[in-house]
């Protein structure tokens, strides 16, 4: 958690989209920006990209006020996927409340997915978080492409881990909101008891997720 100020009645959460280079993390955020209603979200900030590659990060902020008056800001970040930007990844990962791992479904990218997931595990430990406790959702992106790893194989690998897996095509716009909703749901579940979101602030899990994933009527 980036910030929790009981006096100012303010909570700032951080969600991070992690994954190998070119797996579609920025595209996920672009689609969320397009698909979700304007109300309650800010503009997508894309920092310094060269040739459409993320160097620093992208940021899509959300803002909502709980019935109690608690202001909650949710900052959704992408990290640069390229191996050389590990320092940036670590900096962005600091104090993350939840992680969406965006994997590339193409069978040629399996090794990169594994390498990036190892990197995530390592960096999560380095910034002082516990991989077993941080809410984590895995998205297998690019399902629209030919030659992807079969869904049955993916389920047989990840099913036993208990980590939720979402199939998606960010390019076609499906699976993206579902991934975000699942991450929001798990993040809420992880902090509700400690910050008494339901008990004291009157903000229930369903309402929290719905307000974040309120689709644009346009």
């Amino acid at each position, binding site marked *: 958690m980036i910030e929790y100020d009981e006096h100012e009645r303010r909570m700032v959460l951080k969600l991070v989209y992690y994954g190998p280079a070119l797996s579609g993390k920025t595209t996920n955020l672009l689609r969320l920006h397009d698909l979700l209603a304007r109300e309650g979200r800010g503009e997508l*900030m894309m*920092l310094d990209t060269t040739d459409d590659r993320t160097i620093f990060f992208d*940021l899509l902020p959300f*803002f909502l006020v709980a019935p109690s008056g608690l202001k909650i*800001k949710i*900052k959704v970040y992408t990290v640069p996927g390229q191996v050389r930007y590990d*320092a*940036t990844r*670590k900096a962005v990962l600091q104090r993350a409340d939840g992680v969406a791992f965006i994997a590339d479904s193409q069978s040629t990218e399996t090794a990169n997915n594994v390498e990036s997931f190892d990197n995530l595990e390592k960096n999560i430990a380095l910034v002082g978080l516990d991989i077993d406790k941080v809410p984590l959702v895995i998205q297998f992106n690019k399902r629209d492409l030919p030659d992807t790893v079969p869904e049955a194989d993916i389920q047989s690998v990840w099913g036993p881990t208990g980590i939720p897996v979402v199939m998606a095509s960010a390019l076609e716009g499906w699976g993206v909101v579902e991934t975000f909703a699942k991450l929001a749901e798990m993040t809420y579940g992880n902090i509700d008891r400690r910050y008494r979101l339901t008990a004291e602030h009157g903000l229930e899990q369903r309402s929290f997720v719905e307000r974040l994933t309120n689709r644009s009527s346009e």
Partner: protein
Amino acid sequence: MKRQLSLVVGAEKRLTDILSAAEVVPLLEGAVGAGAAYAALLTPDGEVIWERANHDRIGKVSVAVSVMLEGEPVGRLVVQGESVRNEYLDGIAGILLGAVQGIIGVSLKQVLTAEIHTSVINQSYDELLETNRQLSDSEGRYRELASTLEQKVAERTAELEHAHSRLLQQQKMASVGQLAAGMAHEINNPLGFITSNLHTLQKYAARLILMLDYYSSLLESDPAYARLVQISSRKWQELKLDPICADVAPLIGQSLDGAERVKKIVADLKGFSHIDDSEVGIVDLNAEIDRTLSVLEYRFPPGTDIVKNYRELPGYCCNPAQICQLFFHIIENALEARPERPRLIISTSAGSTAVIVSFADNGPGIPEGIRGRIFDPFFTTKEVGAGTGMGLAVAYDIVTGIGGSVEVACPADGGSIITIMLPLQRKQYVPLL
């Protein structure tokens, strides 16, 4: 240590962190210049951050729009003017908001870029410092290793030499034991028939003497043989058969005693070496001391006086051969303290936790300067070649090996006392080698 900027990527910004008067005030002035009576940027609570007014105009109508930062309303732009120009004011407010939001977008991007950049630089710097520290540490270790290498090699070599000597000493004792056991077997066989034959000879000789007496009494009872008696009596005298007959029994008796002693010596030597015993056994320490004394007896200086103050001891669980070695070295050392008339007082006693054995001699005592070194390997006060300096070292190893301790005292009236504490309660017995 320099203070570093501590940043978390995503830390909240206030509106005034993003906007400056230099950027916003000219916009407010523009709004006023374009015909508004008053233009201001306020906090959500209504506090004025920056404002500009044209006092020639009257602000009858007010238009307010929200300024957004990351989706959150963080301020309000207020424009006031005359009522007839209501639409006009909306237009001004719209342009003003667009400009302010534009500046916020650009500034936020700059701030976020700077933030991540600083964060990454700090992190890299910290990592470099850490790497540097680790390298310095390892360099330091290598330097230290290099400078002390020679000394360490010497120390280890000495340790190895000591260990080797101890091993040799132990092996020596073991081979002595083996030799003793072999000899005992070889000696016991002839000793057996010597003893048995001597007993038979004793019987036979007695019968022969009886027969001689019988002849003598037969001849003397018949006067016809008086001449024969006279001649044979002369021959009897000539051959000194009276003292010889008297001497036969004691001669054989003494030989039997001698054979018994040989048997005992052999048995003691074999017992001392414990060559037939298992590694661990329960022994009577008093008996072991006695056994050691009899093995050493041939080396006792003239006039040796051994005083035994034994108390009854519980059975002691140990390696019997090692315990005999321990007593052997200590007694041997004590007896060498005086070339003649040495007096050794051996006392034993048992407490609830340990057996105490002390050896007090009447030698010259141990000079205070070397008292701490007598248990060191190779330390000897004897002439070169006379002693190995290993005896007490091995004794010390044995005592400490079974968890006991050794103390040396030199009373003011002379002599020295070595007191050994052997613990009774040990969870398990650990052989020394």
